[in-house]
């Protein structure tokens, strides 16, 4: 009965109209598309428009359903896909770690300034992410190229004798990713750190904890939610990153987003691309749920 009463209250006139549009928009354009991807991942590729076989075939009053598991089988047997998954996982993990190591002290320092300075520092963190992502990645090409600024600088200082290869490898991918995703780490960490009650640290100091000890036993555990939110905001999108490995990485630095793009646009194999998407989603489901939980907790506070 309680549930029913809740529903009735929800469907009062004004609430119904507030609900109906966002609800149906997200079901139509966010939930249903995933089922279509799932469906196409079970079909066979052909040369047609669209380039896949229908799952249901009606012929002489018979409906035939063909589920083709070959796409998934293919993904698990071809080393290309497995390597790309592992490579993406590795790059996502280490770039999240790097963002955390660089971003945490930044967020901490910003949270400990006076409110007026704080706003300016925060704005300076957000500003770059409001300019084009593509152009910020592109800026690094000019810096990392063989005859680029960094090599010229190192040569000029006499540190190296000949240009070192900085671009088109994993190093360049890490630089690009950490550069592009750093604000996504700093902002949630800051939001968390700024809410901490300073009297807790004072209490720790009164009880004889040194600043470093107080940091590790008070501040760090309290900022867990911020660390989770920031890490997920970096880790999950990086797993599917396409632009950065394409522009800064070499041909052998495969990431799963790049493979998906190539299967889709270059090979026009939509069923395989769909199967890659489904597996990628399955792998990301746990981090996404963790992110969502921490987000809900923050919302409830």
């Amino acid at each position, binding site marked *: 009965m309680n549930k029913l009463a809740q529903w009735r209250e929800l469907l009062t006139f004004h609430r119904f109209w507030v609900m109906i549009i966002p609800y149906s928009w997200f079901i139509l354009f966010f939930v249903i598309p995933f089922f279509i991807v799932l469906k196409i991942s079970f079909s066979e590729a052909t040369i047609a428009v669209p380039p896949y076989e229908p799952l249901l075939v009606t012929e002489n009053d018979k409906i035939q359903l063909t589920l083709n598991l070959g796409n998934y089988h293919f993904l698990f047997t071809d080393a290309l896909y497995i390597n790309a998954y592992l490579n993406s996982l590795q790059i996502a993990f280490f770039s999240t770690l790097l963002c955390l190591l660089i971003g945490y002290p930044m967020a901490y320092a910003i949270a400990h300034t006076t409110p007026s300075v704080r706003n300016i520092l925060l704005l300076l963190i957000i500003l770059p992410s409001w300019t084009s992502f593509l152009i910020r990645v592109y800026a690094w090409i000019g810096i990392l190229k063989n005859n680029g600024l960094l090599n*010229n600088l190192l040569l000029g200082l006499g540190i190296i004798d000949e240009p070192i290869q900085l671009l088109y490898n994993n190093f360049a991918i890490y630089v690009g990713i950490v550069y592009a995703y750093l604000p996504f780490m700093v902002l949630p960490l800051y939001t968390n750190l700024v809410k901490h009650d300073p009297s807790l640290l004072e209490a720790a100091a009164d009880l004889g904890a040194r*600043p470093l000890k107080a940091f590790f036993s008070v501040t760090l555990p309290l900022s867990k939610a911020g660390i989770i939110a920031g890490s997920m905001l970096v880790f*999950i999108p990086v797993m*599917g990153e396409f632009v950065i490995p394409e522009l800064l990485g070499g041909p052998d630095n495969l990431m799963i987003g790049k493979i998906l*793009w190539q299967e889709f646009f270059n090979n026009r194999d939509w069923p395989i691309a769909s199967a890659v998407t489904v597996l990628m*989603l399955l792998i990301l489901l746990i981090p996404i749920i963790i992110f969502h939980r921490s987000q809900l907790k923050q919302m409830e506070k």
Partner: protein
Amino acid sequence: MHSRLTWLLLTFGYLFLYVPIIILVIYSFNESRLVTVWSGFSTQWYRALWEDQQLLAAVWMSLRIAFLTATAAVGLGTAAAMMITRFGHFPGYTPFAAMITAPLVMPEVITGISLLLLFVALEQAIGFPQGRGMLTIWIAHVTFCTAYVTVVISSRLRELDPALEEAAMDLGATPWKVFFLITLPIIAPALLSGWLLAFTLSLDDLVVASFVSGPGSTTLPMVVYSSVRLGVSPKINALASIIILVMFLGVFIAGWIMLRMERKRDLEMQQVVTETLEAEAALFDRPPAHVRLEAKP
């Protein structure tokens, strides 16, 4: 932890964020075709940019899509934020919140491919949308921008004192009236920042737009991407500098407007409080009738 080390790290962090952008702007005024060799000051690349018809068409297309996207995302995002913050834990709260916040982290390639497959399936089934272009890009952009806008607006709604809305209800205002007269004016700065955020997100998107656009509709990031792939070109440096300049100006103007709005609101609040206090003080000193009538024109 308030050591010099933290400050040193902070400075390095900011240098890391800004040095590439500054270098880009400086080299957009380089005379040479070679991006990394400085040979003299010149504005020729800006002129070359101005004459590039394909690029100008893409800019116009991107601006139109971004404007329409931001406007729709603020509408949808406000409704979604109201649902999350004001409707209590309704049945289906968690799935709804998950559905709304998931695009925040979803890799762009997944969003792109799934929406394209939806559009293809829809076109086959009901003949709509016919081909792909502005409409499909707009739908895709609204979907992921609404997630960001919802987070921005709902955090503002949570800060808003519910007593204000309850007071208006007690005085007999209908829910719609409360929303338009009380809630909306107070959350206006959040709507503005949500709008700007959606506008820049849409203007910036390459991956999703590449999936859901047809041959006739090219957005600015798509043009930039294809020319970057052909090699580093000073023209792109000039374009980047213009984008950076416009964004910075936009952010500063928006920040200034928001600051003014907040100040104005704070002043009004203060005025109300002072007036109330004065009236209260007067109540105890003199007979009440005069005070309220003579207090203010």
